[in-house]
């Protein structure tokens, strides 16, 4: 037997061929391993969590929100709703349950002419100790008006604000704007103190709002700490503070609530809702309507008969108990139960095109496949598309799906490179008014007109609604426009979504808001 002299391991002492290099290297590698093992301690890279601010820390609310901040909570971005959800900042007005404007920082207002309004401010204090003045309001609104890109709420109107005296502000619009008080309730028009607005256009609401809670720390996209603001004009909040964590994954949010790591978890996915304790599960009708958009501009569905056949074939109520697990309502139109006035004022859809029969569909499509698009950002949509595919195939269509991430396909959608789209849309946007949505999505010049709809009577009906000042008649005209749109079969409403909010059993006073703009206010607290 021979010991190999070229054995890689030099072996232990006593062996003749020991190589010193080898053992030197060995110590080096040990040092390396030790260094590697120490790195986690050295890096100190865990999110500085408030481990002592947990459940035991005197009633602070722990909230798991779904959409991480994209622009450090700037009101001119997606993050705006966080400011209103957590009662950090307020606008001049607020929306009540029925979607009408109620006083907030303005205690009253009156319309002086077609384009001029006067707002009387209440006595309030910013979280940095400065007083709310008319000039502060003017500055805040000016910043919103000059923000780039412009906040959605100001996309079709130009505001000029002027301070009359210390607590009176006049607002002038370039064209008559009947919904101005509704507009001002938008979180994008929240009034922040002067220190919030940086020279380079960045806006930081940290410690600059007027609401009952003050952001004291924002930790990137993961966490924020809010403390009670004792100088709030509406009285002291019952909860001493809020610890926010952003959890983008729906399952993880549900887990955080179930594991007791969060007291409130918003937007529980329907697949997880059944796992929650019944007492912690709260469903809210949402202003989000899911519909099937048919491309009237090009392709298969330029044929009205085929569109009607698709409308007949598609049954959204089949989705309610399956894909949505019961957390949805069958579609009644474009506006669902979350829009309280819609049901009473709904106009009947008349004069619809007769649906093509399966045989007519077969000949009408001339062998072309129906390109059915949807996106993965909302988990329910791809499932809904699978159900719709089967329904459409029964009606004689040949269907091919195209499912991608939304930003990957938006260009194709607006360019009309598809025949049908399963689409989830918030029907009441910033203003709380529905005209904006109808105008952008269904008028000939609408910028978000994915259906490619160009229909004179639809345009006329939407214009009529936009011009109407009286709230009641405006709503009626909106519903008439809805009927006009539905008559074209450019859109087939499927379901009205319900949001499931997870609220631990010991939390009281959480606001279940269909518009997803409020969640916590002065009265929310742990029992």
């Amino acid at each position, binding site marked *: *037997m*021979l*010991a*190999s002299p*070229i*054995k*890689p*391991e030099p*072996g232990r002492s006593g062996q003749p061929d020991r190589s010193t290099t080898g053992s030197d*290297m060995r110590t080096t*590698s040990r040092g390396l391993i030790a260094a*590697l093992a120490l*790195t986690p301690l050295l890096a100190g*890279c*865990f*999110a500085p*969590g408030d481990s002592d601010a947990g459940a035991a820390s005197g009633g602070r609310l722990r909230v798991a929100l779904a959409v991480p*901040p*994209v622009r450090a909570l700037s009101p*001119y*971005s*997606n993050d705006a709703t966080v400011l209103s959800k957590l009662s950090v900042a307020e606008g001049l007005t607020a929306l009540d349950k029925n979607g009408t404007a109620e006083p907030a920082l303005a205690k009253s207002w009156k319309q002086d002419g077609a384009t001029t309004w006067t707002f009387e401010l209440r006595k309030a204090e910013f979280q940095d100790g400065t007083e709310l003045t008319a000039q502060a309001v003017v500055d805040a609104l000016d910043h919103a008006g000059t923000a780039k*890109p412009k906040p*959605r709420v100001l996309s079709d109107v130009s505001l000029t604000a002027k301070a009359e005296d210390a607590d009176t502000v006049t607002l002038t619009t370039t064209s008559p704007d009947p919904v101005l008080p509704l507009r001002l309730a938008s979180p994008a028009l929240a009034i922040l103190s002067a220190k919030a607005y940086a020279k380079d256009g960045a806006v930081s609401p940290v410690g600059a709002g007027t609401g009952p809670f003050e952001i004291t720390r924002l930790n*990137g*996209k*993961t966490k924020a700490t809010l403390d009670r603001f004792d100088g709030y004009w509406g009285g002291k909040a019952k909860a001493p503070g809020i610890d926010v*964590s952003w959890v*983008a*994954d729906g*399952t*993880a949010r549900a*887990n*955080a609530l*179930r*594991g007791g*790591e969060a007291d409130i978890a918003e937007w529980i996915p329907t*697949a*997880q809702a*059944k796992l929650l304790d019944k007492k912690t599960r709260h469903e809210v009708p949402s202003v989000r309507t899911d519909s099937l958009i048919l491309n009237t501009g090009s392709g298969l569905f330029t044929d009205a008969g085929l569109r009607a056949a698709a409308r007949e074939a598609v049954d959204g109520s*089949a989705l309610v108990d*399956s*894909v949505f697990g019961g957390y949805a309502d069958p579609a009644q139109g474009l506006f669902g139960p979350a829009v309280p006035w819609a049901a009473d004022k709904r106009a009947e859809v008349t004069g619809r095109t007769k649906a093509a029969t399966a045989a007519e569909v077969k000949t009408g499509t001339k062998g072309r496949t129906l390109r059915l698009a949807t996106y*993965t950002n909302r988990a329910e949509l*791809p*499932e809904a598309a*699978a*159900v719709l595919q*089967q329904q459409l195939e029964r009606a004689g269509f040949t269907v*091919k799906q*195209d499912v991608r*991430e939304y*930003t*990957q396909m*938006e*260009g194709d959608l607006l360019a009309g490179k598809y025949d049908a789209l399963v689409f989830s849309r*918030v029907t009441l*946007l*910033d203003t709380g008014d529905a005209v904006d949505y109808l105008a952008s999505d269904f008028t000939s010049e609408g*910028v978000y007109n994915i259906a490619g709809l160009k229909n004179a009577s639809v345009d006329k009906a939407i214009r009529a609604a936009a011009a109407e000042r009286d709230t009641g008649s405006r709503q009626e005209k909106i519903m008439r426009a809805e009927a006009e749109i539905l008559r074209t079969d450019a859109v087939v409403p499927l379901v009205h979504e319900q949001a499931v909010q997870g609220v631990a059993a010991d939390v009281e006073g959480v606001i279940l808001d269909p518009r997803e703009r409020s969640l916590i206010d002065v009265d929310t607290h742990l029992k």
Partner: protein
Amino acid sequence: MSLAHAPAAARPSLWPAAAGRVLAGVALLGAVALLPWLSGADPARTVLRARSADQNPTPSELAAVRGQLGLDEGPLVHLAHWLGGLPGGDAGVSWVSGAPVMPQVGTALSVSLTLMLGAFGVTVLVAGLVCARTVFLGSRRRLRQDRAGTTAAVLASLPKFLLASVLATVCGVGWGWFPSSGWEGPQSMVLPSLALGIPSGAMLGGMLGQALPAAFHEPWARTAYAIGLPPGHIARDGLRRTLPGILPQLLPTVVALVGGAVSVEKIFNIPGLGRLALEAAVAQDLPVLQTATLALVLLGVAAGMLIRALRHALLGRPLRDGALPALHRPPLTVPRSLRWVTTACALLLLALVTAGLLRDPLQVDTAARLLSPSLEHPLGTDALGRDLLARLGHGALRTAGVALAVTAVSAAIGLLLGMTPRASAGPTEVASTLPAVLAGLLIAGVTGPSVWGAACAVCVVGWSPYAAQTAALLEQERASGHIAASVALGAGRLHLLRRHLLPAVVPALLRNALLRLPTTVLVLASLGFLGLGEQPPTPEWGRLLSENQPYAELAPWTVLGPAAALVVLSVLAVTGSVLGRRNGA
């Protein structure tokens, strides 16, 4: 290709390796910098969407964003500006958030590195457990039977995101041992590290377990045993002999987790680099994406050089002096159970496919959703009431076919590139840490949605483990005495390649490829959201797992079926290859 035995005294030039690294890094960063211009998706639109989802993309708003970002200046100006800031530690500001990029990427990188180190710990532990028996028996010279590596194959084929879901639900929510999400202290590390480390450890352990018997079969081990050295020393020396061949796999298996653990980061809500890079890529937020890519490139190169130094330290002088004996597997008997396991797996798959093909995989029945297994639906139904057996059966051929093809192509590319180790070291390190999603985005940018896009994207990054392995094994092989002897006897390059080099590399490569097969299936499916690969509702195993993942707790059978099928496929592949080797030998 320099296949000939390098003279021991001549120091190899460092230039090709350095040039390869720089070129690979530059090529990748260049491709990333061109992404918005390649993809045809207007970055003004994607950035606007990311900032404000409800905003109407009016021409004036898009123009405002374009002006803000200076998009009209073109890619070169941007790249130059970004590069110009780097020496001063300034990587620009994010297009979406407007915040400086460096702190964001720095934090995310440190989080991901910490997580990776945790996963590395688990990997070492699991790999140790997987080959513990071989080490124990081998160091006592009682290794008679070949090991099929079934355990390794089973563990390696567990989908990480499924493991993560189960751990979060059971250990996080159910038992409350660890936080189910968040990143707030060492206790948050445990579950994600387990989810990432178990499959990785099994993979490395499986490869180590295959290499170990050859080491224990060498004459030194016999001698050491004969003179009564304790088994611990023989075990240590055996590991030292085999580890250098496995170490390069750490790069694509463990270090790659820094950028490639997106699904696990999502489930545990960890603010890591993978998620940051993916979000930036989707929003086409170039400064963030470029900086994250640069971090990954540097990490890959650094880790590659570290691993190389470790290997050389372990192998020591024999490697440099060309005095390393080739490792030869001893003739071990195949356990009889192996045949049974293989036959059982084959029959099971066959039955699954036949039974499945007789059923309709697309029939949606909303009344029959999430039914538990019954006579009518032997594997239950999914959330749309589709029969899971049918979907598994119909998906089997496509899934296995595409995954095998992708693996074969990747392995072939890896083998070819691995033969020029110095030049390919850089590209290998860069490709190892490049997340497949990023490759997918670049491919989707060029081709648009396509059936073959997913396969291409996986091939683009998938070759790196094989190249690393080939390079390492060839280096060792070239340092062996018998190659020098062959050259002295006048063997040509082709002869060396066919008779000596390939036979030394291919078995280990095959094992590696088969152990990676399930991962390939899952990675292919993970690119679906970019429109790459077969579109739904086409059944495919990876998609079955990802589309049923939300229902894992409510209806466990929806994921158990596909996961089990993947395990069976993997075990069949691995045991089949062991049997094949036996019969071929």
